[in-house]
């Protein structure tokens, strides 16, 4: 009985020490920099999430939380350029992830590379370049900006983006666009499905292309589009009232392609799939 009691005691001590060690390894660091207009912020995080948020003022605030003493964060400022990078002091199978929360002036241009992510960015007016392998990427409330997103398998979600130059490329990640408009919106995937929900703005060039995923578009009756859809080896379905073009730019093959205009046809919308299904629906 006595030895069992000692065993329990030692176990408790060991657990306590482990907890202290774990707590000690959790290291929250904060970096603050003042920048001018048109600053650029680059974050490279091998493992863990990165959250970027635009804020008023001219400060860049980077909060990095590590969970291991085998990893560290380097932040530096060179002129109007801020760089934050995760460094591995020693490779391990442990909790090497680092979490970044970043506030930037809204007009800053931001580049994030985070293979595992997820990556989120919101309330920005500066250019965004976001790249993750398996990372999910979520971008909200952005205006007047270039938004470049690239993933291998990570899903991409863009919402409430106006007057954007948007370019999304993913191999197998799905891409969801809600209320995304701009002079130029281009989405390319291989296997990933593409969903667009919105009105395509008041004049822009939209190109949604994939190989084998589906393309689903839902738009309101008031949308002003000049729309063409073609799936070479897949099928197309249209549930949206379009006026047939008298001289379509390419021949229409029933079941595989359609084209038409609604209202004044202010925005050009091209939907192209190789073998996926394309569906256009009225909202």
């Amino acid at each position, binding site marked *: 009985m006595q030895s069992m009691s000692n065993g329990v005691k030692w176990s408790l001590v060991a657990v306590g020490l482990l907890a202290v060690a774990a707590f000690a390894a959790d290291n929250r660091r904060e970096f603050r920099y003042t920048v001018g207009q048109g600053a650029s912020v680059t974050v490279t995080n091998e493992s863990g999430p990165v959250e970027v948020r635009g804020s008023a003022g001219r400060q860049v605030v980077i909060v990095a939380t590590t969970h291991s003493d085998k990893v560290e964060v380097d932040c530096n400022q060179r002129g109007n350029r801020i760089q934050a990078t995760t460094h591995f002091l020693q490779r391990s199978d442990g909790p090497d992830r680092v979490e970044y929360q970043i506030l930037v002036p809204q007009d800053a241009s931001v580049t994030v*590379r985070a*293979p*595992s992510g997820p990556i989120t960015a919101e309330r920005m007016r500066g250019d965004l370049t976001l*790249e993750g*392998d*398996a990372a999910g990427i979520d971008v909200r409330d952005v205006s007047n900006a270039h938004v470049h997103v*690239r993933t*291998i*398998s990570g899903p991409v979600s863009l919402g409430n983006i106006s007057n954007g130059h948007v370019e999304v*490329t993913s*191999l*197998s990640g799905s891409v969801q666009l809600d209320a995304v408009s701009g002079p130029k919106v281009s989405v*390319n995937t*291989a*296997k990933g499905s593409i969903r667009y929900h919105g009105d395509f703005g008041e004049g822009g060039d939209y190109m949604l*292309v994939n*190989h*084998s995923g589906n393309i689903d578009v839902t738009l309101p009756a008031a949308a002003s589009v000049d729309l063409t859809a*073609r799936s*070479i*080896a897949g099928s197309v379905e249209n549930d949206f009232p379009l006026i047939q073009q008298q001289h379509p730019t*390419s021949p229409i093959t029933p079941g595989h392609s359609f084209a038409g205009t609604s209202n004044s046809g202010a925005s050009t919308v091209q939907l*192209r799939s*190789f*073998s996926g299904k394309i569906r256009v629906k009225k909202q």
Partner: protein
Amino acid sequence: MNCAEFQKALPGIIESDRNAEEEAHLKSCAVCSDLVQDLRCIAESAKLLLPMQDPSPRVWAGIRSALEREGLVRPLAGTVRFRPQGVVLSPRRWVTGGSLLAVAALLLLAIGITWFFNQGTRDSQPVATAGVPVAIPASSVDEDDAQVLSAVQRRSPALLATYRENLDTVNAYIRDARRTVEQDPYDMGARDHLLRAYNQKALLYEMALARSGE
């Protein structure tokens, strides 16, 4: 000289001086002029991929045979070491695995671009007609794919399955698009898919390189 003839002689044109006829065509044809400029740009970009070390001769042989299969370079008699013209490499400082993959990615894109333009200028050459089976070149980059996967495995083993699966995906995309273009070289939609497929593969290589840290 028309575009097809010019592009047939393209490897020689890139590697050495142009004759008067080729020069004249280059001045009069924006498409070929752009193509030459793109290939030069690719070669210039490859110079930036330092530091470099000597790769395995097997790798260059693989790239050479891939280019030969595509008809972009002429087969050579005997054993001649191939290296991309314009990439200035000292004998002891060739490419590492990572920079080699970058070169491979750029070459891949170049192959795609050149193949694309050759398809569009085949008026004087026999082309496949719909329904007639055509010989599709074997994958030209199997060895490069293997190196990409190897690089990912070294640095980010957890992502290996993701990259392998997506290489299969993009290779299927290239095969499908290429088959369709071969059946109908004037199908602009299929040609657009083919270029996009090559671009996607180049993106995958680029991201694998970034992940591998090489």
